[in-house]
Each structure stands twice: as structure tokens, then as C-alpha cells.
């Protein structure tokens, strides 16, 4: 039997300006009152936490005189950023963990793959819908920061730094969930892998930093073991290692960048010895390193996920 000649393939189909899968994902996420309800609850909780911190800080700093307002403002700012980081670190990946594995479980994955959608289109549609919602949550809490600004003690650069951290964290952890969803056999295992990795990054890097700080911090200040002066190389190496560890977790990156700004009034450059005569060598601030690092890792994870989906039998 002779194979039939291949009929001419239809001309390249006219594409929608917005990917239909992305539209469907957004529609599914936003349809009904769930999204608005969730958003409302998160804003309500964040406002509640901010007010609680305001009350406590106001009580504690009542006898500080003129500086009390700034202390309260800083406290509120820390509380709001803490809430934003919680959303970015824990809520954002929850929206992507089941993105691909859920399609498998609903038996729609093969149907999607048998269409003209490319793996990148499928992935980016899923990511855009999930990340869009996470960013909406982050942006929706921004007006609450006006309270911190009103009270003082916070500058716009600090706000920008915190927003960079939150967004980079939301992006990386969303992509992590998406990637796990591509490789994991079920949504449950994708959730376990994703949150395991997130906790390792958040807690593990903190523990490592604390464990090594006894050894690293004196070196960064120029003192080696036994009280001798550390060589320039030893000191630089210790500073790089400490900076690397501080830049792994958004919590340590935020705290160290805030302290650096308080000491040096410079958001982008970081010094281990701000009080020293020359100020020591200057490094990029941990939040900047984290932002670049997280975005790069997110791109790598996306490529891995696309390769997985691109395989004819993922």
C-alpha cells in the first residue's frame, strides 16, 4: 500500500492576540466571587496585622518623644512587608503547583498537547494567569503602606527595595511550582516538592547563615581565627560567602538591605564595615543580588519546564 501524499498543511493559523489558554485560566481564576473574596480576606488580614503592629509599637514607643512616630512607622512597614513576603512565598506557588499536574488529573493534558499550542505557550499562559493574580494581591496591599509613610521612618527607596524582593520572590516561587507541576506525577507531590524547596531556601539558608556567622563575620571585619588580621583575600572571600548566603532568602536580604540603608543611606551598594574609615569594599546590596539571582533561576526553571513539556511524551 502506497502512503498517501501528505495534504498541504493549512496556512499558519491566525493567532489570537491573547493566548486562548491564558484567557481561559484568567477567566477560571477570576470568574465568580472566589478571587474577589480571597483578595478581600487578604487585604483585611494585612490591614489587621498592620493595625495590631501600629497599636503595639505606639504603646511601646510612647515615651520616646519625637522619635516615636518613626518607630511606629518602621514597625508597620516591617509588618506589611512581612505579609507581602508571606503571600509571595506561600500563596503564589500554591496557584501554580497544580497547573500542569492538574491538567493531567483532569485528563485534559493530552487534549491541550494535541492542539497547536506550543509548550512555551502552555507554560506562559499558566504562569501569566497565576502570577497575575499574585501580583494583584501584592499591589492591592500597597495603599496600606501609606500608613507607614505617614508616620515616617521609611523612605521611598526602602519601599522600592521591598517591592523588588516581593515580586522577585513571587516570580521565582511561582515558576518553581510550575516546574514541579511539570515533572511531578501528581499535584500533591508537586506541592510537597515546591514547599520543601521553599522552606529549605527560607529556613535552610537562614540556619546556614547563623551557623557560619561565628566564623564568617569576624573574617568580613578583617579578623581571622586566633585574633590575627585576616588577609585581604580571606576577608573578601568571607564577604562574598556571607553576601551570597544573605541573598538566598528574601528575609535575610530584606533585613540586611534595610540595616545597610540605615547605616549608609545607600540602597544599592552594601558595605560590611560602614563605620570603618574607608567603609570597606562596596558590594551590590543583597536585595539586588537576590532579585537578579531569583529572576535568572526562574528563567532556568522555565526552560527546564518547557523542555519537559516539549518532549513528545512528558
Amino acid at each position: 500500500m502506497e502512503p498517501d501524499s501528505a495534504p498541504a498543511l493549512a496556512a499558519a493559523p491566525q493567532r489570537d492576540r491573547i493566548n486562548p489558554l491564558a484567557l481561559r485560566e484568567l477567566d477560571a481564576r477570576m470568574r465568580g466571587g472566589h478571587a474577589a473574596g480571597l483578595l478581600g480576606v487578604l487585604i483585611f488580614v494585612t490591614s489587621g496585622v498592620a493595625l495590631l503592629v501600629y497599636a503595639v509599637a505606639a504603646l511601646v514607643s510612647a515615651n520616646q518623644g519625637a522619635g516615636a512616630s518613626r518607630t511606629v512607622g518602621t514597625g508597620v512597614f516591617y509588618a506589611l512587608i512581612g505579609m507581602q513576603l508571606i503571600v509571595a512565598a506561600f500563596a503564589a506557588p500554591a496557584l501554580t503547583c497544580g497547573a500542569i499536574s492538574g491538567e493531567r488529573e483532569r485528563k485534559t493534558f493530552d487534549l491541550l498537547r494535541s492542539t497547536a499550542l506550543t509548550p512555551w505557550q502552555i507554560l506562559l499562559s499558566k504562569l501569566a494567569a497565576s502570577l497575575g493574580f499574585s501580583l494583584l494581591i501584592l499591589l492591592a496591599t500597597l495603599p496600606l503602606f501609606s500608613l507607614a509613610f505617614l508616620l515616617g521612618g521609611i523612605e521611598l527607596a526602602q519601599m522600592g527595595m521591598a517591592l523588588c524582593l516581593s515580586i522577585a520572590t513571587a516570580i521565582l516561587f511561582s515558576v518553581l511550582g510550575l516546574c514541579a507541576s511539570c515533572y511531578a506525577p501528581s499535584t500533591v507531590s508537586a506541592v510537597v516538592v515546591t514547599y520543601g524547596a521553599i522552606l529549605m531556601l527560607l529556613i535552610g539558608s537562614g540556619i546556614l547563615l547563623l551557623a557560619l556567622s561565628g566564623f564568617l563575620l569576624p573574617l568580613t571585619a578583617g579578623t581571622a581565627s586566633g585574633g590575627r588580621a585576616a588577609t585581604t583575600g580571606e576577608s573578601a572571600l568571607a564577604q562574598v560567602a556571607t553576601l551570597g548566603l544573605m541573598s538566598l532568602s528574601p528575609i535575610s536580604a530584606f533585613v540586611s538591605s534595610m540595616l545597610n540603608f540605615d547605616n549608609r543611606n545607600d540602597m544599592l551598594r552594601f558595605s560590611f564595615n560602614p563605620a570603618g574609615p574607608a567603609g570597606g569594599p562596596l558590594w551590590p546590596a543583597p536585595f539586588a543580588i537576590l532579585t537578579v539571582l531569583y529572576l535568572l533561576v526562574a528563567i532556568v526553571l522555565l526552560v527546564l519546564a518547557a523542555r519537559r513539556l516539549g518532549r513528545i511524551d512528558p
Partner: protein
Amino acid sequence: MTSAVEARAVSRRFGKTIALDGVEFSARTSSAHGLVGPVGSGKTTLLRILAALLTPGSGDVRVYGHSVSADPLAVRAMTGYVPSEFGQYSSMTASEYVTFFAACHGVPSSEREALARDLLQLVDLGHRGNTPLETLSPGMRRRLSLARALAHDPLVLLLDDPLAGLDPRGRVEVRELIRELRLMGKTILITSRNMGELEGLCDHITLLERGHVVAAGEYGVLAARLRPHRPMAITFLGESDAALAVAASNPGVFDARMLSDQTLAGAPPLVSEMRLNFDGDYVEASALLNDLLRAGVQVVSFVERADSLEAMFEKVGDGA
């Protein structure tokens, strides 16, 4: 004669399990081809390879000359795949379902609504366009799956066990629809566990067992080869002796026997069932029925039983 689909020495493993081992077959353009075998015979694996959703471990599959391994996107553009399980998005209506997949296939937005309406009409769901997917019956879902698979007007339809789990009415509807699609010039590949199910639907059958092709050929030839005698069941009222005597005297009847009372548990006491193998055509079968009626046997039903697939495979194994 031209072939739309060709599989050459296709093998596929999943770990240590051999799903397909050197499978060869071809399906003619605008024909309906049945892939028949028990659970685990490799039917679905073969169908997913044909849909470019799996790669063959070795060998090659071509759809209109396009290799599933080298050019999966072209193969997907030419095939419409209907899996055995209905893939469902919650909070979607039947019309939205078809429209969504049409959009995923690149159908221009201006054409989608009309296309969805036409396809739903084709599968007799025109009145169900606004019905949520969750409320559709299994038969409706199967027909909707067919509409979804037709959204990009594929040349080849790959139907994985399309009749499984349907009630009699649903089966009739889906069978009718498949016939209609065939008349529209589609090449159709259908998997099934029961060869009898494909009678009147497929003109060519490939029998699979444990990943091997055990028999292939035109439906009629293969059915005659696998089932030289028609297994028949005759139920009637009253005593069995006369019926048994008439059957035994017919030269085309083999192995006539009464079914024990235990097998007929639940039937009224006067109903008896006789099973026999009949070697003759429909005219001779009709003559046998007339003989029974003339002898005063009150025949209630006179039907040809579908031979079990297991029995067929035993015959294939015996070299039938």
C-alpha cells in the same frame, strides 16, 4: 490504494513492560480501521503514538507521510484524538468547550462560534450548547469529545474505545455519528475490547495481544476465520425436548444444549434457553427458526451471541 496511516515495526516499552512489539499496520484513506484487543494489549499506546503524544521506542509511524517522531506538530494538525476518558474543565458549557479548543487550534475568533454551533449540531448537541459539562450524560460527553476533536477539521480521527461505558442508546448514537464522519471522508481508527462492537463500523481490523499483532484483515474475513460457527441462543416457552430434537435434526447445528436452570435464575419457570453453534448463512438460520415454529416451539427470542474476545483469541492462538 493509498494509506493515510502507516505503522512500521513499532515498539514501545514502559520500564520493563513491553507495550508494543514490532507492530505493523496501515489504514487506508477514508476507511475505518479497528484496533481490537484486551486490556493491556497496547491499543491505547498505539493510538497515543498515532496522535503524536508518545514516541515509538523504535520503528516509525507516519500520518499522511509525516513522521510522528520527526514532525509531531504536523501530525497533531492532521489528527483529532478522542481519549477514552472525557477531559473536562469545570464551569464550562458545551459550546465554550468546543470554542476553546478551536481557539487552541488557531481557528480565527470570527469563525469559532459558528463552528461550535455546526459541530454541536453535527453531534446532535445543538440544543445543549449552554449546558454545563458536568451535567452532560456519558453519551453526550462522548459526542462532545468528537465535536471537540473535529474543531480543526482533522483528516484522521483517533477514537479510543468510543463505545465503552455507554448505555444502548448512547452506543447507537455514537455509532451513527462515526458512520456519518466516515461518509464525510475522515479516516477513522477505533480501539475496542470487543470485535463484535465494531461490526458495521470498521472494514478492517487489527487484533492486538500483549503488544503484538495476532491477526489482521477485513472485518468479514477475519470474523469468519475466528468464528466459523455462529453461537446462537434461543429462548422459548415450554418443554425443551421438542426444541432440542428439531435443533439436533438440523445438519448445520452443532453442540445444541439446554442452559441449566441455575443460569436462568430469575426467569419465569416456563422459559428455557437453548445454546447451539450454527454453521450456515442467514437463510439457513431463518429455516431453522421456521422448523422450530412448525414443531410448535413457542420461540421468544432467536439471537446470535457475540463470541467472547477471549474465545476468539484462543482460536487465534490455536492457529485458526
